[in-house]
């Protein structure tokens, strides 16, 4: 019997699975936070979650609405200052995986969270870089998760807020003391990895029921597919029930004040 699930759930479960037990993850708010906590509540009980608010090794019962919710501090091993977080823990090389979302991404995994349009006369002003520019370069590797659409997967990002592999795919070449960069991108349709040589994103796995054409349609450039394209494993009963309980708890918690 197959359990019903949404494409959003498929995305979160797949993103969660990417996190290895015992690894140290610097967690972005939103989708990454959901995936990272699902990982912690399923296959990766000893994953270490770090939020930029200074909360080290936190185990929130409910998903935080903001990066600095009280829940994160109350369930953390300890809470350090924000300068210490960025200096000792991120730049100091203690983070295995940075888990990011984004508003726009291009074929070389460059991320834009700054604006749509021209910098001096933006069509849409987005929140800005936040922690991402240095998470992307100072963490061991980067996972990115976001919804797949031609609005998000664009031929050229309007602004490189955060380095993937640069406009030409060579942005990390020869740069000392830099992380591996994005190693996988997980959407509601598929999983992509950068080509080891060109760094261009390649679809390596389609979620069950998703066609290559659907992915192409939702992507703003002619996207490459791996020769042997896998099918992502569907969410298990366990993964779904844990995720749904987590989201229910979260909704109930944030519904009050």
């Amino acid at each position, binding site marked *: 019997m197959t359990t019903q699930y949404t494409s959003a759930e498929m995305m979160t479960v797949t993103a969660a699975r990417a996190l290895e037990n015992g690894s140290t993850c610097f967690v972005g708010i939103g989708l990454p936070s959901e995936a990272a906590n699902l990982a912690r509540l399923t296959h990766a009980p000893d994953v270490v979650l770090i939020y930029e*608010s200074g909360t080290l090794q936190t185990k929130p019962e409910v998903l935080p609405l903001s990066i600095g919710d009280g829940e994160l501090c109350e369930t953390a091993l300890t809470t350090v200052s924000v300068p210490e977080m960025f200096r000792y823990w991120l730049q100091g090389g203690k983070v295995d995986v940075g888990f990011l979302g984004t508003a726009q991404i291009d074929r070389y995994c460059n991320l834009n969270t700054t604006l749509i349009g021209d910098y001096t006369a933006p069509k849409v002003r987005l929140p800005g870089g936040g922690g991402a520019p240095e998470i992307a370069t100072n963490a061991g590797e980067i996972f990115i998760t976001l919804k797949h659409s031609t609005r998000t997967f664009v031929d050229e990002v309007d602004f490189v807020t955060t380095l993937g592999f640069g406009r030409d795919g060579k942005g990390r070449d020869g740069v000392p003391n830099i992380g591996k960069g994005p190693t996988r991108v997980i959407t509601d349709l598929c999983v992509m990895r950068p080509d080891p040589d060109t760094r261009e994103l390649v679809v390596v796995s389609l979620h069950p029921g998703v066609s290559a054409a659907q992915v192409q349609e939702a992507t703003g450039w002619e996207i490459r597919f791996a020769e042997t394209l896998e099918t992502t494993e569907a969410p298990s009963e366990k993964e779904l029930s844990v995720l749904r309980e987590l989201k229910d708890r979260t909704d109930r918690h944030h519904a009050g004040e």
Partner: protein
Amino acid sequence: MAEFLNLHDAVARYVDDGATVAMEGFTHLIPFAAGHEIIRQGKRDLTLIRMTPDLIYDQLIGAGCVRKLIFSWGGNPGVGSLHRLRDAVEKDYPNHVEILEHSHAAMACAYEAGASGLPLAVLRGYVGSDLPKVNDQIKFIECPFTGEKLAAVPSIRPDVSVVHAQKADRKGNVLVEGIIGVQKEAVLAARHSIVTVEEIVDDLGATPNACVIPGWAVSTVAVAEKGAYPSYAHGYYPRNNRFYKEWDAIARDRGAFNEWLEKNVLTAGGDA
């Protein structure tokens, strides 16, 4: 020793038109009461510094207090945009607001450098980002030992920093607990500082290595009960997440915002 003033007098004394003001609190302990007092006193042409502008700066910008914003992430956390900020940046309403943007790492290091009395912060940052193209305050230096290229940004040295904390003792020593953000750095980096607190106590009850800011490193302490509301104060009250969500609709519309401001800040006296 810190002087004890009421919030009105603290703001009147230390926040001048045209001043560079940092109001910090990383999601936690955001000094809303002090922000409202600045709005009520009609301060103008402020350069505001803050890593995460949040609703407090949306309100100050919407109220017309602000000329320039230095920040690294400007949004309503978990909800969406700061519409008053966008309206000012995109449509010059109520006035044009100039922005200068950094990354979190750079701003955190710049506060740290400011507290350390240095003119610059050095970090391994901005690699491959377009931010240095639009912010001329981001430069690069070469390490004299390794030759590595590293980013440098000016340290943050505000005219006045404003933070909220749980409590102060009768000498003005301040205890900050929980998510401590860059509050201590903001206070130490500034020429003057205003610390609002939930309460004054006889004894802070602090453990040996707690985050305590000595009274002699603070200009003034003002009591502001629920002074961080609708953000939260660890050990005192939770975040009003609902208000953060409701803010989206209020701030989206100029009329709704002005009405909200009139009712909840301008005519609300010192208690809002």
